[in-house]
């Protein structure tokens, strides 16, 4: 009985992990990408539906308290699965177009997703560690999935080395926390928390591990190189699903495990947030490679998200959750359009200079990219605006005026680099006639759906926002508010 309850609580993860094992077995026996792809989409979709339903269900613990379900975890799972599903949908056409479709891609994606699901459901440091590692190791391999390509190998190796390095800090932090409190359960650690050096150092190192995963400055250095070298649709997956998973876990750790009064945690996050916003936006301005630009943009967005965490209020947390979803939608979209252009022959279409005049050639793609970039800038009525606004409001209400102002200024600076591709696409004449291939129906409709979602949640965000806020009125964060 207990066993079934546990499995049921983690059903999306179980389905996805199982699908990962099955696909890898299929791949071992025959080269049948169709069925692997089908199974992948099906399992992700099934997981997504289950975890969305879970959001409205009760909150609880399973596997002897190792994981939690419902509430924030369910929302985190939904975002992760949403990101994975849409990345898979655009991946097939892209990967076969660049002639590198391997069955392993889907298996690795599924296993990484299972790791992320564990991460966002974690209620125990060991679970966090397993989740992060399952996710990361798959991502290291995915970064270099194209064999014989130097840039991919470089990305993969760098990601691995630095990832291993940061995991060292993470693990050390966990060990110190265990030493300080004698437990690995988040809530028990919170109960045993104190201001002594051991606890603070442990928690700080744990945070550092997370900062690396969410690419906050100065732990961000791997991001541009890895994003650039990885196949674009996989980059989309890294930038959205893995980042969302890490952020949700960070949020859970901060809200459940680290009592605010033990040290100046908000101050640290504030400084890191400022550094991240400023550096991310500044360096993005000078990028010519659109994938690097999007990499720095994702760093900048991590900064905005940290603002919400620094606020540390239920309002801030729900804003962060909303922003993660918004960020996932628009980023997959933007990377998707880039993936579309990138597979054209003849020119390097990751170079923004080669986007001149493309807007009128394939109007749909031009319009879609404009949608996503506008949303990333944070212009109403797109979802990016709502997310940014919620974080901004949360920061103001929590008294972080300076953070809010910097967020606003940084966003203003970001207009420059987000609108640049659009200026190139629409206001400059093409310098060379490049025939653009037609995108497939699945690819196209996936992007259209994403664009529609940026608009839909930009206008009708009320229900989702209320749902997210309700997570924090329940006793899920008794700890945070109670103390």
């Amino acid at each position, binding site marked *: 009985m207990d*066993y079934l309850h546990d499995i049921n609580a983690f059903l999306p993860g179980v389905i996805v992990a199982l699908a990962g*094992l099955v696909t*890898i077995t299929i791949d*071992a026996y025959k080269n049948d990408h169709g069925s692997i792809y089908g199974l992948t989409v099906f399992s992700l979709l099934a997981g997504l539906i289950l975890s969305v339903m879970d959001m409205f269900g009760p909150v609880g613990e399973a596997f002897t308290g190792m994981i939690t379900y419902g509430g924030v975890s369910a929302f985190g799972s939904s975002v992760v699965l949403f990101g994975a599903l849409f990345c898979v949908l655009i991946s097939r056409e892209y990967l076969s177009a660049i002639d590198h479709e391997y069955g392993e891609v889907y298996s690795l994606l599924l296993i990484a997703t299972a790791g992320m699901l564990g991460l966002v459901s974690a209620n125990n440091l060991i679970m966090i560690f397993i989740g992060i590692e399952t996710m990361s190791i798959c991502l290291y391999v995915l970064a270099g999935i194209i064999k014989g390509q130097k840039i991919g190998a470089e990305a993969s190796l760098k990601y691995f080395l630095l990832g291993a390095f940061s995991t060292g800090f993470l693990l050390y932090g966990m060990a110190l926390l265990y030493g300080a409190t004698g437990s690995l359960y988040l809530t028990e650690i919170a109960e045993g928390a104190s201001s002594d050096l051991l606890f603070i150092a442990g928690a700080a190192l744990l945070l550092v591990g997370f900062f690396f995963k969410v690419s906050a400055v100065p732990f961000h250095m791997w991001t541009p190189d890895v994003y650039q070298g990885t196949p674009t649709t996989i980059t989309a997956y890294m930038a959205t699903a893995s980042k969302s998973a890490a952020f949700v876990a960070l949020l859970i750790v901060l809200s459940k495990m680290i009592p605010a009064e033990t040290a100046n945690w908000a101050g640290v996050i504030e400084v890191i947030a400022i550094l991240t916003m400023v550096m991310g936006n500044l360096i993005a301005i000078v990028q010519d490679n659109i994938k690097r630009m999007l990499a720095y943009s994702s760093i900048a967005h991590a900064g905005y998200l940290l603002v919400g965490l620094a606020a540390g209020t239920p309002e801030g947390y729900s804003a962060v959750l909303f922003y993660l979803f918004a960020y996932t939608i628009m980023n997959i979209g933007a990377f998707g359009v880039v993936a579309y252009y990138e597979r054209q022959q003849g020119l390097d279409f990751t170079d923004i200079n080669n986007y001149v005049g493309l807007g009128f050639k394939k109007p749909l793609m031009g319009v879609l990219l404009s949608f996503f970039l506008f949303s990333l800038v944070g212009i109403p009525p797109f979802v990016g605006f709502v997310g940014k606004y919620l974080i901004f409001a949360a920061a103001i209400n929590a008294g972080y005026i300076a953070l809010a102002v910097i967020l606003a200024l940084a966003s203003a600076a970001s207009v420059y680099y987000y609108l640049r591709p659009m200026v190139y696409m629409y206001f400059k004449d093409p310098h060379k006639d490049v025939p653009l291939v037609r995108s497939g129906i699945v690819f196209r409709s996936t992007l259209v759906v994403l664009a529609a979602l940026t608009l839909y949640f930009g206008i009708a965000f009320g229900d989702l926002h209320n749902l997210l806020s309700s997570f924090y009125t329940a006793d899920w964060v008794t700890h945070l508010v109670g103390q």
Partner: protein
Amino acid sequence: MFENYLPIAILAGVAVVLAILLMTLSRVLGPYRPNKTKLDPYESGMDPVGDAANRYSISFYLVAIAFIVFDVEVVFVYPWAVSYLDFGPGTLVSMIIFILELYVGLIYLIKKGALDWDLKKGMFN
């Protein structure tokens, strides 16, 4: 608190003394005719000094990694087996699942030719 470290200190002391004692004894008792080869440190038959970018066959690493995976399996299985009576039969299911997962990996390795020492046939052709 330092008395806790006393056995370690004793062990370390014994080790150091014993090493010095043995080296001195062999030097004193045995014949001593050194040459270059004899003075080399012994490292499993490999040349310990040389080009850092020395190239190995990739198959070496593949087998090594596969070995570590199953090594870790054993690390899990032994303690579990020892405490099986405490854990109860429910954990048997967990362990079976764990081993099956590794088994899937093994199948994948074999099918992809990762264990094929001949690179022409293996996964790097």
